[in-house]
């Protein structure tokens, strides 16, 4: 019995290879999107996770003046292993006239078991070559250092030592430069003693690896207690992770939205394909039943056939998802999705696929076993509208086709929906694209009115400001400071940004409420409001470097940094010790000025200049994803169209002879067929595109809100883009319908049933 059904399935699949392939690809595309989304949402692309795992990192780093009581630390509950203690010394790297602060850290020549740096280029430290150092890779990249480059350092005593970069390594124990300063270089103990001979000027760092990272705060408290007053500073894995965070949340949310909507569309396409196939094969199914296939057997056979295509798609999607997260996102050191979500995605899609194919299969199983009964579409009269259309001499082919289009209600509805949903998602994708374009065109709307920031470095703040303002392209310079503030009741810090003075605030993009205008007023990103559970108008109390700060939040800004967990206020709201001198000046440039050029000019005046990274550049991968999704969604739409087209032809193959007998030319017959199938498709395209354009802004804002950036970033696709998409979609739809219609209209039509 299995072989009998198997024969039929094999024969049927052979007869519709293209359609079957489309079904597989559509499901595969959706599963790939879901897996990529889940990986991004799961933080798999945060390089910290991969680095930390591979380097077997330490969760807590304790900085002490002298070597700490190692047995006491080791005895702490929850500590599994120790890294160090290592000596660490501050020094200055002299590089092309610049003086960059660095931290030299002692490390053994043999790789340690915990907090093992991951050598990426060159060689590791060698006791036979004590002048070699291994430099942290992001720091080396920022400075253009490579293995073999000279590494000239000046110790605190002023003595200069010519060292050489022997290798570059990565580590999960320190954030990337320049977010995490100073830059790190690993040296041998003897080299460190050479640069910093005075033992009083070094500090000791000890890493603790924990059994459960969730108990970090507890362990830190205990360690501080155990070491009494020795502890100078504690850094935990959370800060390192935060410093490496990309804007994955927004990306993941977007992908998840597309994935879920795409899954609905794919399920619909599968159901449509199965249903359409069942309808076109009613006679064959009836024949099978007359041969002795039971209802259940037919249903099982159809589920097996169409479900297998779906499951094949899922398998392919799982593979593609793995490959994409492994290769396409390889820059981000991705950790593959953990088994839980992976299984959930696979099982969830499998369930959706099976339900989608089961319903039409069940209907197919209920086909009466009399193969002679023709499955004709319900006949209807010409509607009044159609009569009027004929009276005013609209082309009869159009009128007849338009009438045909909606005689079978359910397939017509399925076609409209099947085209509309992918079209809607495509339009929303274009909305995302337009939003990114808007980020680039108007960086001031995402808080990047200032393209550059100068740090005084060796100069005094006033001097740095004067030098920056001397540049013709610099319009304004706002004094600023970025500090971490401790939030009450939270074991974590948030970023506070003091920028501009209350009387002359930096042009933050205020989305709700108003800009701060006085000392003690602040604006916040959505992420911060959500984190603290506060609203505009509420007061918040924080501690910055031991000094309490109480501000009233008067507005919400669009905040692309730090998942929106940033509080911004005027620098005059800060205590003087933190505000003076300003850490940096944010420079607003003349419109049209090239930030890179200005940066180069300022650097030539020995200023340290950072260029702001537009969120759109960081989110550039979204564009790749949008293109890929548009392709998948187009495939889904195409699958639906093919089904509709096959069904339309089947319904009308008998009418063709009648139409020809009535005197319609082949061209008119073709036009009738094209109208009959093309009309629901066109309706679907227009409905979907309008819904997408209508929803995209709100949806992107919703995503923005969810990701902490905040509402107010969403844009609808530009009119030109929108029109082009609609036209292309309609053109493609008509073309897909036209080819089989043309063939059918020219073919000799049998007058009897086949």
């Amino acid at each position, binding site marked *: 019995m299995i072989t*009998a059904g198997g024969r039929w399935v094999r024969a049927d699949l052979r007869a519709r290879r293209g359609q079957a392939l489309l079904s597989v690809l559509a499901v595969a595309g959706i599963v790939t999107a879901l897996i990529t989304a889940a990986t991004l949402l799961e933080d798999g692309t945060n390089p910290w996770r991969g680095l930390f795992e591979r380097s077997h990192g330490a969760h807590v780093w304790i900085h002490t003046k002298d070597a700490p009581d190692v047995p006491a630390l080791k005895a702490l509950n929850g500590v599994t292993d120790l890294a160090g203690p290592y000596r660490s010394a501050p020094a200055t790297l002299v590089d092309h006239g610049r003086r960059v602060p660095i931290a030299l850290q002692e490390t053994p020549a043999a790789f340690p078991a915990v907090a093992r740096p991951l050598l990426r280029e060159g060689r590791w430290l060698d006791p036979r070559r004590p002048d070699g150092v291994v430099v942290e890779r992001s720091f080396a990249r920022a400075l253009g250092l490579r293995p073999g480059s000279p590494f000239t350092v000046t110790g605190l005593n002023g003595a200069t030592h010519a060292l050489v970069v022997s290798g570059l390594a990565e580590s999960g124990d320190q954030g990337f430069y320049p977010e995490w300063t100073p830059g790190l270089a690993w040296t041998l103990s003897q080299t460190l003693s050479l640069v910093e001979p005075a033992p009083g000027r070094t500090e000791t760092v000890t890493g603790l690896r924990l059994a459960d990272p969730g108990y970090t705060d507890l362990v830190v408290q205990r360690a501080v207690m155990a070491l009494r007053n020795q502890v100078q500073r504690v850094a935990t894995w959370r800060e390192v992770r935060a410093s490496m965070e990309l804007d994955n949340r927004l990306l993941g949310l977007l992908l998840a939205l597309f994935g879920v909507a795409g899954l609905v569309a794919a399920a619909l396409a599968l159901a449509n394909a199965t249903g359409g196939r069942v309808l076109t094969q009613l006679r064959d199914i009836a*024949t099978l039943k*007359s041969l002795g296939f039971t209802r259940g057997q037919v249903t099982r056979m159809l589920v097996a056939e169409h479900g297998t295509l779906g499951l094949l798609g899922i398998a392919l999607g799982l593979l593609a998802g793995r490959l994409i997260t492994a290769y396409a996102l390889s820059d981000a050191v991705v950790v593959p999705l953990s088994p839980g979500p992976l299984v959930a995605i696979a099982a969830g899609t499998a369930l959706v696929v099976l339900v989608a194919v089961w319903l039409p299969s069940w209907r197919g199983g209920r086909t009466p076993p009399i*193969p002679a009964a023709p499955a004709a579409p319900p006949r209807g009269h010409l509607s009044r509208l159609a009569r009027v259309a004929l009276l005013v001499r609209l082309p009869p082919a159009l009128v007849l086709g338009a009438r045909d289009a909606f005689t079978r209600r359910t397939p017509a509805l399925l076609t409209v929906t099947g085209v509309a949903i992918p079209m809607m998602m495509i339009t929303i994708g274009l909305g995302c694209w337009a939003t990114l374009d808007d980020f680039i065109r108007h960086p001031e709307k995402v808080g990047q009115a200032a393209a550059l920031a100068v740090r005084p470095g060796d100069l005094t703040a006033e001097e740095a400001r004067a030098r920056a303002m001397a540049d013709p392209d610099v319009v304004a310079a706002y004094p600023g400071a970025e500090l971490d503030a401790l939030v009450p009741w939270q074991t974590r810090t948030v970023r506070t940004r003091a920028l501009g003075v209350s009387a002359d605030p930096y042009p933050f993009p205020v989305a709700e409420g108003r800009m701060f205008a006085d000392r003690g007023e602040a604006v916040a990103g959505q992420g911060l409001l959500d984190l603290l559970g506060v609203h505009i108008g509420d007061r918040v109390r924080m501690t910055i470097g031991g000094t309490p700060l109480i501000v009233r939040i008067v507005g919400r800004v669009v905040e692309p940094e730090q998942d929106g967990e940033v509080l911004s206020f005027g620098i005059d709201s800060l205590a003087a010790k933190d505000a003076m001198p300003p850490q940096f000046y944010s420079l607003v440039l003349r419109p049209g000025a090239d930030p890179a050029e200005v940066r180069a000019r300022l650097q030539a005046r020995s200023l340290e200049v950072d260029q702001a990274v537009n969120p759109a550049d960081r989110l550039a991968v979204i564009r790749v994803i949008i293109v890929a999704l548009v392709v998948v969604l187009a495939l889904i739409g195409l699958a639906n169209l093919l089904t509709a087209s096959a069904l339309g032809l089947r319904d009308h193959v008998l009418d063709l002879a009648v139409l020809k007998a009535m005197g319609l030319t082949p061209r008119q017959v073709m036009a009738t067929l094209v109208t009959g199938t093309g009309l629901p498709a066109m309706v679907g395209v227009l409905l979907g595109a309008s819904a997408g354009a209508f929803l995209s802004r709100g949806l992107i804002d919703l995503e923005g809100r969810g990701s902490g950036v905040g509402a107010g970033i969403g844009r609808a696709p530009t009119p030109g883009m929108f029109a082009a998409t609609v036209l292309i979609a309609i053109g493609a739809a008509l073309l897909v319908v036209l080819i089989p219609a043309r063939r059918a209209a020219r073919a000799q039509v049998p007058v009897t049933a086949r």
Partner: protein
Amino acid sequence: MDTPVVKATNLVKIYQTGGLPVPAVRGIDLTVRAGEFVAIMGPSGSGKSTFIHMLGGLETRTSGEIWLDGKRADTLSESGWAVLRRQKVGFVFQFFNLVANMTVADNVELPALLGGVSPRQARERREYLLGELGLTERAAAAPAQLSGGEQQRVALARALANHPRLLLADEPTGNLDSRNTRDVLKLLGQVHRQGQTIVLVTHDARVASMADRVVSLLDGQIVDDGAIPRTRRRPSGTAGDVVELHG
């Protein structure tokens, strides 16, 4: 006396069309013995197709009893009927109804596979049947590549694949030209001579004349049921030559 292959007692079928009862078959009693060849004749709308569909379980009866091979069948579920069909009943239809996507060979092997025999046995049976019907070289062809007569011969082979106790033929020549009609009838005659029980529906008197017995239906009732006297049949003449006006 052996059990009849088919026994229908007071069989009634009433269709509900738009709420109105439309009787198609109104109390037919019919018994077909093993090895018998019964032709059911009647004009369009006389209920002959409905009757034969009920005998094969393709349609449910409104009332009455159907006994197939000594077992009561009218009370079977749809699945029960399906299983019964695959074991005991072969169907031949007017429009051949070969599964379009499958080759001739697959079409003929399908019922055997469905009946649970091994693929090898199914292949052997198919080779034998197609050989008998002169279609060996068309085994790999698609049904659409065959002429009407060839398609009907394949359909016959498919109906015979499981050695059915009963062969039901619904206007098997209704869609064929006279030469193909002759060929198909010749084959039916051959099968019958090998002992196959056949119930055939037709409105063509020449076709009916092949049978041992002709049952005439009018308005869903039997109006005449008579055996064709052996003496008036040519023992081995071709079916198409026999012109027999009856009833």
